[in-house]
C-alpha cells in the first residue's frame, strides 16, 4: 500500500531556530497538505497545496510558515522562527481529489513529525 513518508520522526529545536519538516507524498497524488496536532487537542489544518501553489491556508499558517515542493517528490514545511507553542505533531497528507467526478478520495496521512521547541 502506498505511503506518505515524513522525516524526521522527531525534531527538537531551540526557540527562534528554523526547522524544515520533510514529506514525500504518494507519487500520483495531486493535492498536498500539512496538518498539526498539539498534544491532547484536535487535528488542525494548516495549508493545502496544488499545482505548485498554496490553494488554502488557515489562520495558524502565518508569515513564519512556508511550504515548498522543490522537486517532483518532496513537499516541505518550514517554520522560520520557532516558538514554544509550535510544539506539536505535524502531519503531511496527500490526496487524489477529482473535482467534478463522482468520487472523492480519502487523504493518506504520514506518521508525523513530533516537533519539540525548547
Amino acid at each position, binding site marked *: 500500500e502506498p505511503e506518505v513518508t515524513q522525516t524526521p520522526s522527531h525534531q527538537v529545536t531551540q526557540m527562534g531556530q528554523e526547522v524544515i519538516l520533510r514529506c514525500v507524498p504518494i507519487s500520483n497524488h495531486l493535492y498536498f497538505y500539512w496538518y498539526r496536532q498539539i498534544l491532547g487537542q484536535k487535528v488542525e489544518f494548516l495549508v493545502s497545496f496544488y499545482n505548485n501553489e498554496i490553494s488554502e491556508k488557515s489562520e495558524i499558517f502565518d508569515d513564519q510558515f512556508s511550504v515548498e515542493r522543490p522537486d517532483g517528490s518532496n513537499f516541505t514545511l518550514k517554520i522560520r522562527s520557532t516558538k514554544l507553542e509550535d510544539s506539536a505533531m505535524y502531519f503531511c497528507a496527500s490526496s487524489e481529489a477529482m473535482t467534478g467526478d463522482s468520487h472523492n478520495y480519502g487523504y*493518506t496521512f504520514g506518521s508525523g513529525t513530533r516537533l519539540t521547541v525548547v
Partner: protein
Amino acid sequence: LAKTTQPISMDSYEGQEVNITCSHNNIATNDYITWYQQFPSQGPRFIIQGYKTKVTNEVASLFIPADRKSSTLSLPRVSLSDTAVYYCLVEAAGNKLTFGGGTRVLVKP
C-alpha cells in the same frame, strides 16, 4: 457551528460490533462523509467514505440514510487493536478536512 456531532467515547468488548453514529444536519449536496481512525502519536488513517446508502469495505461498513443527516460507522467483531479515536468528517471533494474531537473507542478484553 460544528459540522458533525459524535459521541465523545464508547466502550466495547472484543468480538462485539461497534456502531458509531455521527450527526451532520447541515450536510451539503456536494459533501461526502468520511471516517478516519487515529492511534496515539500516529496520523489519521482513512477508513471508509460514502455519499448515500451503504458502503462496505474490508474493515467497516458505513450506513447513510436517505436524508444524509446522519451516518453510522459499523466495525464488526472488534479486537483490542481497534482501540483508537474515530473521526467523522463531511467535506466536498478537494476541500480541507476539518476534524472534530472524534469518538474514543476503548475495546476491552
